[in-house]
């Protein structure tokens, strides 16, 4: 393999990885606070793409406005899922909330098939995403450039919110000591609601960019990216936002490189990701940056 195509593959891996990272952050933030794996998270990713699709195709809104509105709508869906499905179970055993999460996921997928239709739809991607750029001999699509750029911007905003705002401070406090945070006069339900909103917004942003990369959307499209992002969150150290970012990039780059270096194995690329998950759970269940994992799923 020559250097040009290696760089091309690396950029592909980074762009795929930053999408996994965006989704993984939602898993890890919710886990950090509630010790809950929100299995419906991948389906919020799917809903985000459909919101954008309908806003562009039916309401004929400009692309940037559709994307922004779709992200906002997905944030609301995330808060609703928490309000309707998880909040009533706050003091129930953890396993009940976990089973509920699986149920919410099945519900969204099947409701999606009924309401949105099972047939895949072509996603109307904007010109700057599909354009091919020639960078010193390496041909790179707009997606491979813009996805990492937009992801980095979103991550910077996220880190600002987490480390420089009041609500971010409350999120970090809740993640270490829920009871004492309540004693500070913090309304936990509100903090948790915001956490779902932020995670869902990032998942929707990831979903929309995913649809620009693979411009076909269907109601089950969230399942595999969701599982892989979950893997990324575990590999990075679940509960740790920086870890989820690193985990996402690692998983994305490994997935692309396996296909690039061993084309014969490309059919197994999904399996490789889960092999990585199994290895981590066996060897280092706390992940690359993780704190002690209190309960495994």
């Amino acid at each position: 393999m020559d250097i040009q195509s290696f760089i091309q593959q690396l950029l592909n891996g980074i762009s795929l990885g930053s999408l996994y990272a965006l989704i993984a952050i939602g898993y890890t933030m919710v886990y950090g606070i509630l010790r809950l794996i929100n299995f419906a998270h991948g389906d919020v990713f799917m809903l985000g793409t459909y919101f954008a699709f309908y806003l562009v195709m039916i309401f004929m809104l400009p692309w940037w406005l559709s994307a922004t509105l779709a992200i906002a709508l997905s944030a609301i869906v995330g808060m609703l899922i928490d309000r309707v499905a998880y909040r009533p179970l706050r003091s129930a055993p953890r396993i009940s909330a976990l089973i509920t999460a699986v149920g919410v996921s099945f519900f969204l997928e099947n409701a999606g098939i009924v309401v949105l239709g099972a047939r895949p739809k072509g996603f109307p991607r904007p010109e700057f995403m599909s354009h091919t750029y020639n960078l010193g001999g390496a041909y790179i699509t707009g997606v491979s450039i813009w996805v990492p750029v937009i992801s980095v911007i979103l991550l910077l905003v996220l880190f600002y919110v987490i480390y420089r705002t009041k609500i971010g401070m409350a999120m970090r406090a809740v993640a270490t000591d829920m009871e004492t945070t309540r004693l500070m006069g913090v309304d936990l339900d509100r903090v948790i609601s915001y956490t779902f909103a932020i995670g869902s917004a990032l998942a929707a942003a990831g979903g929309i960019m995913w649809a620009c990369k693979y411009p076909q959307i269907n109601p089950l499209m969230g399942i595999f990216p969701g599982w892989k992002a979950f893997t990324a969150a575990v590999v990075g150290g679940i509960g740790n936002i920086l870890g989820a970012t690193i985990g996402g990039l690692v998983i994305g780059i490994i997935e692309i490189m396996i296909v690039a270096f061993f084309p014969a194995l490309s059919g197994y690329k999904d399996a490789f990701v889960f092999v990585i998950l199994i290895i981590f759970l066996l060897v280092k269940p706390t992940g690359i940056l993780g704190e002690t994992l209190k309960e495994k799923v």
Partner: protein
Amino acid sequence: MLKLENLHVYYGGIHALKGITMDVPDGKIVTLIGANGAGKSTTLRAIAGLTRAQKGSIKLMNEDITGKPAHIVTQKGVAMAPEGRRIFPNLTVLENLMMGAYPRTDKEEIFSDLDWVFSLFPRLKERQRQKGGTLSGGEQQMLAVGRALMSRPKLLALDEPSLGLAPVLVNEVFDVLRQIHEEGCTILLIEQNAKAALKLADYGYVLETGRITMSGPGRELLENEKVKKAYLGE
């Protein structure tokens, strides 16, 4: 300020509080002493809204706060420095203090209170950028008290502030409590260190296996033969 009427708390099958009645008058220091497992922390948890009382009532300035969630109780003016300090180890000292002021929106007042807390505990000012988890035990206790003060409470409730501290530090913490009290804060102090607590307090209650068995002005309890034998080791 705070009135408990016939408070009962059950933990699972255990009857932890068996009808507690107590009164914390405005501007006073009241202490609740008792052995391990007598129900001191349970009483505080019930007041703070962390544990539900099955029977009886808790009134804060004549307002019934029984069964109110913890964050509402805090917003109504009860601040707690919980047992074991429970500072946020991953937040900086400054952030820990700001968490104490979380529901407040009066920015300028918050910063003047911050200066006040730093004047009470100069050590915290030096270490404000450090992570809470890197502080020593005594500094963490100061942080827990300072954090509680940042809500500008009407009632400051402290659970075993002397626990695990060297005698010098215990004196330091109690001196600050005296100072806080002089500035008009009502204090409910829960202590195993009965001597120090009774010396400081205007009024004391003795708790034994979920019941108040004795009460009286702090000085009187210090002289009481039963208290001397059971709690002062004399």
